[in-house]
């Protein structure tokens, strides 16, 4: 029996989760939400995480009904992400790892998403579409690496949606992407141009429907291309943007055409959370990996394919 606690705070969510052999015992999370029209900056985000992290840690232990002695390993997000928030979380992880006398494991955030997706959906060996505010990658596993087949050459798809939401001052509560999706549902017209002169509601929906349809079509295309290269019959969508039902719908259509299966998780697990770091940590720990304290520095850049995937063959 192996129990791993995972700490995640690379963007505006701070989450701490505990996993015991594939069972999520607790997964509390807080989100730093900025007023409409504003994004979140590193120092403010770090301050938010700093203020709540110890409370969330207590919650994670209490909800799981565990004491520190019951934990086998402390996993935390090494990167990628925003520097100041990453440091805040790493400090607490390093400190409790030493206080409790448990080994430490630095986890790649993207791999956290992948391993959680695999655990929850039981997909066997899927082509992965990882889409969030900070990342957009198409990933396939091959010979001990999560290979990046395709990615954004500039900004992540979630970042595009978030920036658009800022421009038109959509609320960031619970997330800008969620609110875009709700408004886009009311749209029935696909509009060629991003601008349309109609009543407020219709023009919002029109613009947002256009945004979603175009962005998501692009993602479906590159995922399909990766599947063709790998001869894959499974797709797994992870990352916050993966919550979007329209994206899942469009991907589902492509999968059906190819006779492939589509896997996705709900908002508990596709949005950044602590348990996903714990799950990746569980896999890494069981395959013999450990992070020495002197090597536990955080890093804003950390490519998914830099990690040796020792737990798969």
């Amino acid at each position, binding site marked *: 029996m192996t129990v791993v606690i995972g700490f995640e705070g690379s963007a505006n969510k701070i989450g701490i989760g505990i996993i015991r052999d594939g069972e999520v015992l607790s997964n509390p999370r807080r989100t730093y939400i900025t007023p409409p029209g504003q994004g979140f900056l590193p120092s403010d985000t770090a301050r938010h995480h*700093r203020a709540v*992290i*110890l409370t969330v*840690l*207590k919650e994670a232990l209490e909800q799981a009904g565990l004491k*520190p*002695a019951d934990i086998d390993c402390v996993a935390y997000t090494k990167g990628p992400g925003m*520097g*100041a928030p990453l*440091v*805040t979380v*790493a*400090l*607490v992880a*390093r*400190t*409790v790892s*030493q*206080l*409790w*006398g448990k080994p430490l494991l630095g986890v790649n955030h993207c791999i956290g998403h992948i391993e959680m997706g695999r655990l929850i959906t039981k997909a066997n060996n899927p082509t992965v579409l990882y889409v969030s505010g900070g990342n957009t990658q198409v990933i396939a596993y091959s010979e001990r690496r999560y290979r990046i087949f395709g990615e954004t050459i500039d900004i992540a798809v979630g970042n595009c949606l978030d920036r658009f939401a800022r421009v038109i001052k959509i609320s960031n509560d619970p997330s800008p992407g969620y609110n875009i999706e709700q408004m886009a549902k009311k749209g029935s017209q696909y509009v060629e141009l991003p601008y349309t002169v109609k009543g407020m509601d219709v023009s919002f929906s029109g613009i947002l429907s256009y945004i979603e349809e175009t962005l998501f079509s692009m993602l479906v295309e590159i995922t399909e291309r990766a599947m063709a290269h790998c001869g894959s019959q499974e797709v797994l969508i992870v990352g916050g943007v993966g919550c979007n039902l329209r994206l899942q719908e469009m991907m589902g259509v492509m999968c059906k055409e190819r006779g492939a299966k589509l896997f996705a998780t709900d908002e508990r697990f596709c949005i950044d959370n602590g348990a996903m770091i714990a799950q990746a940590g569980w896999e890494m720990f069981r395959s013999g990996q450990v992070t020495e*304290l*002197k*090597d*536990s*520095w*955080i890093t804003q850049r950390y490519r998914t394919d830099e990690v040796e995937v020792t737990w798969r063959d």
Partner: protein
Amino acid sequence: MAAAGEANGGTGKLESSLDVPFPSSREATIALRSLSPDKEPRKGGISKLITVSGSTLSRWSADEARILRVSVNSFLDHLSLVLETMEMFGPPVAV
């Protein structure tokens, strides 16, 4: 905690030092190992050295007062988080 800042006439660099007392050298070492892995965000113009001898001592030198201030401020924020964590989840288990 004693803090001192002075201009080092010899090198022209600004220096600052902090002496942070801990209940035991074990706890001072825990703090040191939590605080030292991350590199300074700023590439140049700042050098920070943290050592332990009974208590935790940090010593900085920087080219400009502004750079020194930012680094010391960050360190104090991080130190206070580590201390709060140790208070809430300590004392360290017997080795």
